[in-house]
């Protein structure tokens, strides 16, 4: 870790209106994540873990407060600007992989590169490199239905890495995997953090998974319970 701030949440509030009720998820939440950090976010259901991930990934906007990424505000971006920002800066890894069933592993990994100006040869080179990194070079032409859960998650990691984002957001990445496979995936994430310097925020229910992170934040009722980690 360099100590340089990658993400900063300042007085972020998030409220949802459901019928006549207003549900407050966060109320003036603060958080700083330095470059190269690997943060595990734990907490009971409904504590706001996923909403936090949505805000960090720019797929949801705060009701109040400011979110800065690499020194620039992202909470003020339009939907189109956010889409571009996500494509360049954030890689997503989901619990259920969310691969495109109609595309092979290589094509799934290539997807984010359609948003770049890379030519076909460069895209192929990058896809091969990403699949090799996750140990699936030989499964490039396989479809998701032809792969195990662990392999699908590795393809999802390759897809998240392909555009070389600074931030990886993982939503229960091992929630659907057995222990051994989960450990493989977590070790891979740890490697990406330590060797490639990727900043990772991982939501998990699994204390074993959290051990792979550099630190763990506990969320409860929209508040971090470890005060020393809150900005």
């Amino acid at each position, binding site marked *: 870790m360099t100590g340089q701030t990658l993400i900063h949440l300042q007085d972020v509030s998030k409220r949802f209106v459901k019928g006549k009720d207003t549900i407050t998820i966060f109320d003036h939440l603060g958080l700083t994540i330095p470059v190269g950090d690997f943060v595990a976010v734990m907490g009971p259901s409904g504590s706001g873990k996923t909403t936090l*991930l949505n805000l960090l990934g720019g797929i949801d906007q705060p009701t109040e407060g400011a979110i800065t990424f690499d020194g620039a505000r992202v909470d003020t971006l339009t939907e189109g600007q956010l889409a571009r920002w996500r494509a360049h800066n954030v890689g997503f890894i989901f619990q259920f992989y969310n691969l495109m069933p109609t595309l092979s592993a290589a094509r799934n990994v*290539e997807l984010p590169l359609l948003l770049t100006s890379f030519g076909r040869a460069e895209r192929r080179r990058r896809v091969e490199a990403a699949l090799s990194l996750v140990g699936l070079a030989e499964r490039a032409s396989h479809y998701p239905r032809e792969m195990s859960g662990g392999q699908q998650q590795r393809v999802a990691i390759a897809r998240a890495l392909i555009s070389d984002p600074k931030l990886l957001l993982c939503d229960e990445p091992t929630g659907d995997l057995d222990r051994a496979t989960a450990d493989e995936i977590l070790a891979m994430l740890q490697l990406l953090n330590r060797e490639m310097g990727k900043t990772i925020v991982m939501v998990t229910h699994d204390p074993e998974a959290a051990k792979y992170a550099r630190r763990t934040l506990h969320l409860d009722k929209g508040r971090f319970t470890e005060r020393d980690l809150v900005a």
Partner: protein
Amino acid sequence: MSDLYLLWRNLFRRKLRTFLMMLAIFVAFVIYGVLGSINYAFEHGVDSVADNRLVVTNKITFIQPMPFAYVNKIAAVKGVKNVTYASWFGGYYQDPRNQIGTYAVDPESYMRVYRDDLRIDPEAHDTFIHDRTTMLVGEAVAKKYGWKAGDRIPLNSNIFTNKADGSHTWELTVAGIAYAAKEASNTNFILFQHENFNESKTFGKDTVGWITLETDSATVNDKVAAAIDDLFANSTAETNTQSEKAFGKAFLAQLGNIALIITLVVGAAFATILMIVGNTMVMAVRERTKEIAVLKTLGFPSWRIWRQVLGESVLLALLGGVPGLAVAALLVTLLAKGVSGAIPGLALTLPVTALGVGFMVLLGLITGFVPAWTALRLNIVTALGRL
């Protein structure tokens, strides 16, 4: 990989469903192609006639004859250049099912008025004018029955009786073949001498079915038509003078309003397809809600996904519609041979094809609009169930 590849893979994710949708579109465009071509051939055949030709018929109905004396009176009207006349014979060959458009005409004046529409060998032309027992046979009829110059053909009428022997048969010699000078002209006809017809029929003597005239210019058509109808006002056979185009359309209308029938049939086919394909496309995109949300999460802009979904439905319409038009072209070609020129210019023409492709794109855009809009508006958080 490109957006087109993505689109293609999505379109064929459920092959049977896509195939059935393509089949439905295919059938709709076969119907459109065949009926549209027939309609175009009828419309275009009528439209191709000269602008300065008028047709005078009995005001009651054009199947009611008029006195022969009208011909000379009309010829004397100011603005009339050439006049000819004809009568409907109701001809058929051997079997009443073998109907042939048979007209008794005045050869010289008829050839003068229709000089730009027919191409006739000079020898055949002379024979037809000078020999009262001859007939000119349109190319389509000659081809169908294998007739050639010099053949003697017993031609039957389902209206008139030949006073020579009390039969319904007139034996006529083929003077030659009449070819269409314009592609869209009908050659499913027989012309024979009105003088011969007038003398040999048992009733309706000295009458004509209709009188065709050329005006000095199309600009005086209205004035000439009004003058002719005024001339015979309050007579026993009042007249109705109209352009030959209008007359042709009125004649076709006897067969029913072809354009309306075709529009209704094609419209019904398209409306059905619209509902089937539209509904299926909505379902197809709905079951991909999560994938669309993932694409948006990866950074795909909403408009690009909107374009994908619309492109998918347009491609589907083209994949079903283009083969449909191709098969329609084949069927129309076979049909054109089968009817032996009865519908001149019957072919899948460029305008019909272009309109068909336009319909495909429109069909794709309409059926894709709702799912594309849904995809455009899709909220990632809701779609991924991440609240």
